[in-house]
């Protein structure tokens, strides 16, 4: 007996999607500005910890949020500093940061709480759940859509925000020009490095919310390595959504859907390992289908034009 297509199920999908959505928006900002942010994993993890610490010690959710944001932006800033200013390979720096964050967060947690596994001993605050006044009264839809954590709604707003930022603001225009043709941006006096720095910091900001969702909404504690690969999934979602905020929203929800389906499949006795593959196999299938769709849209370009715009020459 499985429990698909019920309001509770969709509620779950949305909950599972939230942290990925934040980080995927972070990934979009980066990819639009022409940098690969493989450090999303450590951004989320760090923010998850600093948010809990800040809220725990201040007993103020707002300060907690600021703490989380600063944590995420600190990692993003480090990535920017080493890759943009010291010209280290950005993938390598991202990987090194990811490795450092796992140990680093435990170290910091130990220093502040004396604990190494989770921050149960400090009383962190959680972001509140909110019921949406009218929405909650609609029978089925209300159950699925209302009553989520405030960060979930913020995540959806972030999709609109990112779209708005990229397509409506002057800074968004500059950011896209840097990603698409940095020389053109330079030639009109845009400081490419600074724009990329800002893009990374914004991704630190958005990624931080993904992390805080893990430790201050999803759960009420930080625990070791709790992000568990969600940063990478977000990269996949952004890539599947072709760095378009709404396409990425779809892709992230698709992952959330498959992940939620996999929880249900286990309960009906399908081996855990087979079920464990479901979300990832579906991402690959999704990537393929989406890429094929994109390809068919773009075929009008001649081959030589495609060659010149090889996406991998970035």
């Amino acid at each position, binding site marked *: 007996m499985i429990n698909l297509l019920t309001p509770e199920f969709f509620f779950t999908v949305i909950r599972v999607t939230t942290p990925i959505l934040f980080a995927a928006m972070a990934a979009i900002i980066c990819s639009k500005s022409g940098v690969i942010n493989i450090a999303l994993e450590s951004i989320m993890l760090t923010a998850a910890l600093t948010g809990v610490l800040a809220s725990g010690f201040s007993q103020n959710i707002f300060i907690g949020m600021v703490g989380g944001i600063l944590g995420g932006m600190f990692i993003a800033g480090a990535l920017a500093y080493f890759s943009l200013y010291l010209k280290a390979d950005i993938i390598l720096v991202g990987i090194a940061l990811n490795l450092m964050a796992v140990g680093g967060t435990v170290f910091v947690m130990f220093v502040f709480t004396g604990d190494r596994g989770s921050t149960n001993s400090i009383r962190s605050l959680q972001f509140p759940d909110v019921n949406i006044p009218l929405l909650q009264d609609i029978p089925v839809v209300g159950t699925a859509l209302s009553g989520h954590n405030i960060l979930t709604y913020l995540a959806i707003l972030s999709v609109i925000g990112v779209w708005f930022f990229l397509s409506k603001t002057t800074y968004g225009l500059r950011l896209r020009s840097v990603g698409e043709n940095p020389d053109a941006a330079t030639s009109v006096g845009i400081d490419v490095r600074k724009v990329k720095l800002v893009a990374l910091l914004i991704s630190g900001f958005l990624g931080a919310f993904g992390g805080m969702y893990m430790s201050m909404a999803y759960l009420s504690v930080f625990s070791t390595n709790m992000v568990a690969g969600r940063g990478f999934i977000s990269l996949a979602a952004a890539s599947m959504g072709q760095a378009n905020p709404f396409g990425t929203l779809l892709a992230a929800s698709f992952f959330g859907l498959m992940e939620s389906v996999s929880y249900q499949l286990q309960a009906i006795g399908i081996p855990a390992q087979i079920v464990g593959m479901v979300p990832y196999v579906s991402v*690959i299938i999704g990537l393929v289908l989406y890429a094929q769709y994109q390809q068919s849209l773009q075929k009008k370009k001649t081959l030589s034009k495609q060659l010149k715009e090889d996406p991998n020459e970035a």
Partner: protein
Amino acid sequence: MLKLIKQRWLDQPLDNRFESIRFSMAIVISLIVTLVLVLLVSNEPLFALQQLFLGPLASIRKFGNVIESMIPLTFLGLSVAIMFSARQFNLGSSGALFLGGTVTAVVVLTLPLPGFVLSVVAILLGAFTGGLVTLIPAFIKLRFGASELVSSLMMNFIALNLGFFIILNYYRDPQAGSLASFEFPSSSLLVQLIPGTRIHTGLLLLFIMIVLIYLFIQKTKWGYALRMTGFNKSFATYSGISTGAVILYSQFLGGILAGMAGSVEMLGMYDRFRWQAMPTYAFDGVIVAVLAKNKPQYIPLAAFVLSYIRIGADTMSVNSDVSFQVIAIIQGLIIIMIAANAFLAKYRQRLVVQEAITND
């Protein structure tokens, strides 16, 4: 004597000179940071640092540890380097390693072959499996144009689950407390090379592979095609090079090397399948390859440096009061500093100007 050294130094091309200086400075700076961190957290900082830097030299066994862990690092470094040389950002090496090791375990537990033949067959099949893991993202990229970076990351999760599924359902030793296969026939295990260490014959295979991969990339016509594709794919296509084939074989070979790493680990370091999670080599190959600038000849060196740092760090964490989480931070810093190309850029520019003016 000193003069002679100085002369030889000046005879080096500027870039080599600069690189050595930059590398040493990077090390020095990371050492200073390490020193500060250790001073902050330790009550016995001198002892801790001594453990960190000299620990790996304390005994044959310790030095053996450096070499043992250098083996998979080198394999993975080669694996990543060959794919990166063709500018294919496939990060599926860890999945390839895992599934390669799994298949090796399956083979030695299944095929009724005599010892040496069995290990050879097991390693070959493991390597081939690894190749398949990275080939799938390559194929998807070629056929559908989807990024291999993302699909290969997904492949890692798939490989992990698949490997566990196979061992759990068909080869699990019910007596073992954790997920583990039955014991391998002892004749299939790789022979220990140096007594007192776990250094095994996988090291010989590694040397062979380093030479082969070096020859392949630098000296063969396929390696040439691969490099040109990596430098500029449009150029390669235009020249009549079959870049589709390059995309496939570069990633296939990368996977083979990673799969081989898994197989060699499995038969060299274990007596049965006992991985409980994806081995944390995950991204180590990338670190090694980037440090070695994708050059096969430098990869063993980069792997050695990384391995030395790690064993030193482990020794410090076991023997002193510095916890291993601090060490994770130190390691990351050292790696990033070494990779920071523009570090000392101003100094380099001075060297260049100096040289230009003297040449006038």
